[in-house]
C-alpha cells in the first residue's frame, strides 16, 4: 500500500486509521494480509493449569484470557496501558495484560483474578475489598486486587517507589507508599480511600 499524496491528505482525503503510515524504522513493507497470519501455538499456565492455544499472533494476553479462555475477570478498560483494569500476574509479577502479546508468554505462569479466589473461597484481598467496599461498579476491581496482591510482594522485596524517602532503606508500608504504588490502577468510581483500607487491612495482618 502506498502512502496517499500528503497534500491531498491535508486538504480532504484522510486515511482511516494509519495503515499507510510509515514506521520510524523504515518503510512498512506490504503485509502478508492476503493470506492472513499463521496461528501461533503456545502454552500458558493459567491459574495453575496448562492451557494450549493456537492464536493469531496479534492477540494480546488480555484478549487471549478473555476471548479464548473465557476468563473475563481481567477487564479491558483502555487497551493501551492507561487504566490498569487488565492487571494480571505473570510469573508472580504484575503487568498490564493489554500491552503484551500472548505469544510472548509461551510457558509463562499467569495468575488472574479467577485464580486468586472464587465467590465461595475468596482470597483475603478479595474478602477485604468486599468488607471495606473497595469498589463500586466493579470494573476496575479485578485489576485493583491483582495489583494490590503483587504490590505488597514488591514492598516485601524492597523495591522502592516514587515516594520512598530513603532509597537505601527498606520501603515502609505506609498509606502514601500504597497510594503511589497503586496509582497505575484507575478507579473512576473513586473507591480509592476504601481500597487503601482494604489493602492496609490485609497487609497489616500477621503473615
Amino acid at each position, binding site marked *: 500500500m502506498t502512502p*496517499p499524496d500528503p497534500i491531498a491528505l491535508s486538504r*480532504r*482525503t*484522510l*486515511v*482511516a*486509521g494509519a*495503515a499507510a503510515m510509515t514506521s520510524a524504522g523504515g518503510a512498512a513493507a506490504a503485509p502478508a*494480509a*492476503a*493470506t*492472513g497470519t499463521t496461528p501461533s501455538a503456545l502454552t500458558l499456565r493459567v491459574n495453575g493449569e496448562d492451557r494450549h492455544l493456537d492464536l*493469531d499472533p*496479534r492477540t494480546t494476553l488480555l*484478549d487471549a484470557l*478473555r476471548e479464548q479462555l473465557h*476468563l*473475563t*475477570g*481481567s*477487564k479491558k*478498560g*483502555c487497551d*493501551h496501558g*492507561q*487504566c490498569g*483494569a487488565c492487571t494480571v500476574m505473570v510469573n508472580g509479577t504484575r503487568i498490564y495484560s493489554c500491552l503484551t502479546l500472548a505469544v510472548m508468554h509461551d510457558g509463562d505462569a499467569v495468575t488472574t*483474578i*479467577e485464580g*486468586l479466589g*472464587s*465467590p465461595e473461597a*475468596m482470597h483475603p484481598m*478479595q474478602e477485604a*475489598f*468486599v*468488607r471495606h*467496599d473497595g*469498589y*463500586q*461498579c*466493579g*470494573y*476496575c476491581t*479485578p485489576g485493583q486486587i491483582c495489583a494490590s496482591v503483587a504490590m505488597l510482594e514488591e514492598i516485601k522485596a524492597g523495591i522502592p517507589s516514587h515516594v520512598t524517602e530513603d532509597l537505601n532503606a527498606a520501603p515502609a508500608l505506609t498509606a*502514601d507508599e500504597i*497510594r*503511589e504504588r*497503586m*496509582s*497505575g*490502577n*484507575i478507579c*473512576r*468510581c*473513586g*473507591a*480509592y*480511600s*476504601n481500597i487503601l483500607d482494604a489493602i492496609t487491612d490485609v497487609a497489616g495482618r500477621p503473615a
Partner: protein
Amino acid sequence: MKFDTPATSNPIDQLKVVGRPTTRIEGPLKTTGRAPYAYERHDVAPNQAYGHVLGAGIGKGRVVSMETDAARAAPGVIAIVTTLDMAQLPKGKMNTAFLFGGAEIQHYHQAIAVVVAESFEQARDAAGLIRVEYARGEGRFDLTAARPQAKPVDADGKQASAEEADERVGDFEGAFARAEVTLDESYTTPDESHAMMEPHATIAAWDGGKLTIWTSTQMVAWWRRDLAITLGLKPEDVRVDSPYIGGGFGGKLFLRADAVMAALGARAAGRPVKLALARPQVANNTTHRPATIQRIRIGAGRDGRITAIAHESLSGDLPDGQPETAVSQTKLLYAGANRLIAMRLAELDLPEGNSMRAPGEAPGMMALEVAMDEMAERLGLDPVEFRILNDTQVDPSDPSRPFSQRQLIRCLREGAERFGWAQRNASPGRQRNGRWLTGLGMAAGFRNNLVVKSGARVRLGTDGMVTVETDMTDIGTGSYTIIAQTAAEMMGVGLDRVRVRLGDSDFPVSAGSGGQFGGNSSTAGVYAACVKLREAVAQRLGFNAADASFSDGEVRAGNRRVKLEEAAAAQELVAEDRIEFGDLSKRFQQSTFAGHFVEVAVDAFTGEVRVRRMLAVCAAGRILNPISARSQVIGAMTMGVGAALMEELAVDKRHGFFVNHDLAGYEVPVHADIPQQEVVFLDETDPVSSPMKAKGVGELGLCGVGAAVANAIYNATGVRVRDYPVTLDKLLEGLPDIV
C-alpha cells in the same frame, strides 16, 4: 401505588435491614471477576462475531466516499456496514446527535462504519483499511466566539425570548446597584468526560425481526425505546439486558452508537456481533459535560445579608441540544429578595453535550461557591458564617414552598467543628511549612432530590425465596443491595432469602440510574410491589393484610403465626406494582445538602496541589445503606478533586474535536491524588420524598467539592483561579518569589 401524601410509619421504619451497614450482595462476584459485563456474555448467544466501529476523522462536514474493497477482502471479514449504505437513522427521543447513517458528519469520531470479522484483531485491522474521503464543513467549535449567537433558554432548556426565559424575582439590577458590597465575576468550567472504566459495549443478536442486546446502560427502558426508534422496530421486538455496568456517570443514560452498530453489524453478518468502542473513540463519539462560562453577581449589605444575586451561564451544544443548567442551584441555595437567573445556549459542532453526574449543579456549584468565598472575604465574614447568615428554609422565589428538609446549617456547623475550621488563617498565603503552602477551604453542597416513577415485580417462590425483578440498573451505586434490603425488610426475611435480578427489559420499568434519583425511587417501587405481595400473602394465609406483620420469616397477626414460605408452598406468589409520585415535589422543595471541607498543600515552587484531607457532612434523608452511600460520596468527592485540579477535554478549535481523547491524555485522579476522606450523614428522614424517606446522595457528594478545593488553594496561596481546572500553570504567577 401513588405517593401523594407524606409518608407515615411503615414497615421500612423497623430498620432491621434497611439502614444497616451492609456489604454489597454482588461483592463476591465482582471481586472474583465473575460478574459478567456486556462484552463478556459468551454464553448468551452462540457464534459471536466481532465488530469494530470506525469513527469520522473530521469534526464537521460530509463523507464523500468510502472505499471498502481492501477491508472487505481482508482475512476474516464477514460484513461491513458504512454510513453511506443508508439514510440518516432517526434519533432516539433522548439523543441530540444522530448516531449513524447518511453522509453528514456532525462531530468528530461519529460512527461511520462497522466492520464485522471472525476475530477482534481482524475487525480492527480491516477497519484501518477503509479509506474515507471527506468534504470538510465550517464548524463552530469555540464557545467564547459563539457567544454573540447564543440564544436564551428557559429552565427546561427550551428556546424563548430573554423575557420569558430569564427568571427574575424582585428587581435585581436596582438592588445590586444599591448594595453596599458587591461581587461581579466570571468563572469557566471546561468540557469534561465521564471516563467510566468500562467503554460502551454491546452484544447484539437477531432472531427474525426481534433483537436482543446485552449492553451497558443506565436506563434500560430508554435504550429499548430509542433503539427501536432508531432501527424502525417495535419496542416489544427489542430486549435489553444489562445486569452489570462498568460505570456510567451519565455517559450511558442515552442510547449510544455501540448498540446501534452492533445491531446493524449483526443484521449484516447474520450472526450475533459483539463490539466495544475503542477507548480513544469514547470521548468524541459519545457525550460529555459541556463547558460553561458563568457570570455571578452578588450584592449584600455590610451585615452580610444578600440582597441581590444573579447567575448567568453560557454553554454550547449541537443543534437541538440542551444547556448545561449551571444556574439551577442558585435559585434555591441562598436567601435574597432580588434575583436573576439566565441561561444562554450556543450552537457548537463539538460532540454532544449532555448529562454527566450532577448536571447543572456540578459546574454551577464550582462557580457559585467560589463566588460565595470571594464575597465572604469582601464582607470580612467567615465563609461558613456567611452561608449560614443567608440560609433560607423556603424557596426564595416562592416563599409558600418550604424545603421538605433543609439541614444545611447543621452540615456546615458540624463540618466546621469536625474539620478544625477554627484553625484556618483567614488571611491567604500565610501558612507555610517547608516547601508547602497549606490552606483550608469549604463550600456548601447542594443537589436537588428528584423522584421518578419506578416499578418492580416480587416473587415469593415455592422455596420461600423472595425474588425481586426490575429493570433498575446498578452502575456501582449499590442498587442490588438496597433493593435486597428493602425486600427483606418488607417481607420480614433475612438478606439470604432475597434474590435481586436487575437490568432486563423483560422486567418492570424502573426509574433507572441517573440524577441521584435511582436509589430512592427504585426502592420505593420495590416497596410498592412488596406491599402488594404482602396483601397476596395475607390473603392466601387468611390474614387481614392491614393487621399482618412480617418479620423473622413469619407472618403474624394477633396470636397467629405462619411461616412466610407456607404462603407459596403450593404455588409461587407474584406481585407487581410501581411507585408514582404526586405533586409533593411541587408543594415542597426537595433537595439534599452538604458541607464540604478540604485541606490542600501547594508546592511553593511548582504550584503542584495535593489534597490532604476531605470531609463531607451530608443531609440526604434516610441513608438506606451507610456503606454504599458513603462510597457514593467518597467517589463523588474524588470526581470533584478531578474537576477542580485536572479534568479538561482540550478543544482543538480549528478542527473541532477533543484532543486528549484517551485515559492518558484526559487525566482523572489516581490513588496518589486522593487523601483520607471522611463522610458524615446527619440523622434524617424525609417523609415527603418517598415511603423510603430517603433521598439521593450520589451526586450531592460532588456538588461543591470543586469549589472547596479551589477555595482551599486560594487560602493556601492567595491566588484566586476562576477558570477550572486549577492547574499549576494558573498558580505560578502568584506564588512566592524564588531566591
